[in-house]
């Protein structure tokens, strides 16, 4: 889900850059120094998740984990995802530096919105937490594909058909992401429940 350089138009790139800058500033302002390592860990998890391809049949899928980051880190997901995407662009030429802002918005903004809305839900127990975690993972990926489609449509009308398909293509990935987010949150609730209170305690 990394848009390559040369695809988006300048207004979309500038818009993406500005939103990313604003989101990162908000995120950095909300970070307390004792949260930095947790953010670094989640940023690393996002960085690695993109490399985990599951070759199955004629295709392969990979994880994003943006829903998990939005759910746990809230606004702090902006600097976390920005740093991971920057390294992916520099080390592996995924996306690119010019399109970094737009890619960050695509992957981060839906995750932050979903995270802020659903954050209280993970403080509950049982099935509600599972359902909320699944919804966060699912909706974040779906939101990202919608944002990506919007960026492509705004840049070039020729991408319109492909953009509609893009949303459909990402439905299975969104479902997978939801399942994985659900299990991850459930696991964190058992082994390190304080992480789930991370953003609620420090940032609200």
């Amino acid at each position, binding site marked *: *889900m*990394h*848009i*390559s*350089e*040369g*695809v988006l138009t300048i207004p979309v790139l500038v818009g993406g850059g500005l939103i990313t800058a604003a989101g990162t500033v908000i995120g950095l302002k909300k970070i307390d*120094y*004792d949260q*930095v*390592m947790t*953010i*670094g*860990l989640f*940023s*690393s998890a996002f*960085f*690695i998740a*993109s*490399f985990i*391809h*599951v*070759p*199955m*049949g*004629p*295709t*392969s*899928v*990979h994880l994003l984990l943006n829903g998990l980051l939005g759910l746990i880190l809230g606004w702090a997901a902006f600097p976390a995802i920005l*740093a*991971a995407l920057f*390294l*992916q662009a520099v*080390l*592996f*030429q*995924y*996306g690119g530096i010019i399109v970094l802002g737009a890619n960050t918005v695509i992957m981060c903004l839906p995750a932050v919105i979903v995270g802020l809305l659903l954050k209280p839900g993970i403080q509950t127990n049982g099935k509600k937490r599972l359902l909320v975690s699944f919804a966060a993972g699912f909706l974040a990926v779906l939101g990202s594909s919608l944002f*990506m489609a919007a*960026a*492509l449509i705004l840049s070039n009308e020729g*991408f319109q058909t*492909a*953009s509609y*398909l*893009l949303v*459909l*293509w*990402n*439905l*299975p*990935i969104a*479902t*997978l992401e939801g*399942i994985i987010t659900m299990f991850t949150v459930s696991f964190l609730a058992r082994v390190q429940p304080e992480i789930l209170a991370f953003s609620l305690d420090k940032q609200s």
Partner: protein
Amino acid sequence: MNVKQILAVSIFTALLWSPFSSSAHKLNLFVWTENNTVTVESSLSGGRTLRHGTVTVIDTASGKTIVSGETDNNGIFSFSLEQEIVKQSPTLDIIVSGGDGHQAHWLLQGDEYGGKAETQVVVQGPPEQQPTAQQAADGEGLYLSKTEFEQLLDSLLEQKLAPIRKNIGLLVNPAPSLRDVGAGIGYLLGCAGIIAWFRSRKQNNMNTRKGEQ
């Protein structure tokens, strides 16, 4: 295993096998030439070939699109260059688009395809080396001009070098190594550690000042 578990596993497997599931980070592109035929091969990160990707070839000198088409099921698109283009030998910008925000460029320089200036020098051999009429008819002792010999040599070399060029192209787009991934994690955690250290030091200094007051 109860019905719910079987259902969950079935859905999970179906999702992974879904032909619509696709996600990638990067479009890899490799172009090689054999005489005046250009072959474009593209694949997505993760190893999948790019099916029905749009290929556009632009003459960078004039800015005109000279060829366009789609990759086949193997992610390959081949085209022959017109003689006029070959003579002019402009740099060609080959763009492959996956249509989902993935795009890759490859600049094909003029000297990489058969667009070499043709020399008009024709070397005449001594009369005693000229083939007889019977030998020429049989293809024996055929006497080639310098130009013809160079063209023949170029053609043979192109055929032999094509697979080597393809392998070089694969090396140009290597898959991320474990070392690079480790380096990325190291950067992220290292930077977080440095920031945390600075901020905790600042906090300690503030606490010390408060204590002194």
